């Protein structure tokens, strides 16, 4: 089993998701950007809470990647979303729950009950569906 260090910023970002169910971005002045996942430009910055809402930009249709061998995509689709408060898009898991995955669809973050310390510890769902389900958030 490979073990890597996620780095100073990556470790904080993943730990916040895992232990606090909190999504945050790294705000820097130079360059002026709020990045998520955090990008370490070697300059000063500060953590800023982002979400829980987001906007869907695009996704990979399940029927196009069914034979990709990606087990996680049996239950999710790979999406690209712009989290509220962030300035750059994020690759993330999305559960469309039957919604039409149009660009601009409003989403809300959900956190897994278990945790792995990776990107599968959270996902996004359409706002109406996430309000009616009982997953921990």
């Amino acid at each position, binding site marked *: 089993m*490979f073990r*890597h260090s*996620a780095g100073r910023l*990556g470790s904080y970002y*993943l730990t916040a998701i895992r232990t606090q169910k909190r999504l945050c971005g790294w705000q820097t002045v130079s360059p002026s950007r709020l*990045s998520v*996942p955090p990008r370490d430009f070697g300059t000063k910055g500060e953590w800023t809470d982002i979400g829980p809402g987001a906007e869907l*930009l*695009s*996704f*990979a*249709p399940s*029927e*196009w*990647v*069914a*034979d*990709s*061998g*990606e*087990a*996680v*995509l049996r239950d*999710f689709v*790979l*999406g*690209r979303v712009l989290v509220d408060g962030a300035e*750059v*898009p*994020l*690759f*993330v*898991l999305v559960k469309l729950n039957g919604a039409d995955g149009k*660009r601009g669809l409003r989403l809300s973050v959900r956190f897994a009950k278990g945790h*792995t310390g*990776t*990107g*599968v510890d959270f996902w996004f769902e359409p706002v109406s569906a996430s309000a009616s389900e009982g997953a921990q958030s």
Partner: protein
Amino acid sequence: MRPGAVIAGCGWKLGRPFPDRLDVVIRQAVLAALAESGLSIDDIDSFVTVAGDTLDGISVPGRAEVAGNYGRRYLNVPSSAGHGLGAAVTQIEAGEAKNLILVGWGAATKYGAFDPRRNQADPFYARPIGASPRVVAALQANEILDMPGMEKSALQSYADAMAQRAWDGTVAPEAGAAPAWVRTGFCDGAVAIVLRRASDGKPGVAVSDFASISRAYSPEDDRLDTAEWVKEALSAMSGRGYTDGTEFTVIEAAAPTPIAEARALSALGFASDTDQGKFNPSGGGATAHFGQATALRQIAETSRRLAAGSKSSSRRPSKGLVLDLTGPAGQHTTAIMLQAETVQ
């Protein structure tokens, strides 16, 4: 216009898969390129290869020796064809090499059954959520589909036409899988290009300009739009600014999928119903894709067409453009301008 390098000869081969060992085919491509250039292996003072561990494991140095690099200046560029060409041309322009062979290869037919390139995705954010190159390309395809002029029927026609040109056959839709215009048409390939210094007075096809732009694995762009990346690369060429493509007699592109390729070409005026063979006469790279070195074939094909044109009727310089879009979404984009030197 850059001063420096001329394409003197090319050799290439595609297969699905190769009937012979890859080493043998690489050597055949090198010998064909040398024969076309009129140079011998003893004239070559530098080798540049475009190959990477994803496709070739620890075989890269061994295959480079088979290609003829033993005892010569050697550089492997484990990146895109465009980056490899840039390294080769720069060696010549800097005076480090007079005659150089650029070689690239990949045995990617097996990726048609299963694409294992997950290791290209970063291990913390992209890989655990299934954002492999295959899936990212599908996501991008779904996004491009919403852009103007990207109709499904036209894209199927484009994919079929490109496959006919590359393989003398059509792309058969597969039940339950992504349509042909979303899929990468993997194959085996090997390409060799002999480059020499431009100042020796012999005819050839000049590499008159090139420029690369790039994005991270997860691009920060609002859209994964290959047309915008092409415009950016063209604008980066010696500050000449964006061109609409009318000045070129042939334009070749290699992108991960036919839809990404068609969208890239649309930046230069391509529309499937107006294509008169100016765009991708070779069939492009998406339907004959052998990994990061794929666009070396587009460079070689364009060079040969320009050289043939300069020997026939026209005395006017003939210009070609090659677009190399490598990476899961084609976000490592290189634009290469070629110009035939007219035979007097």
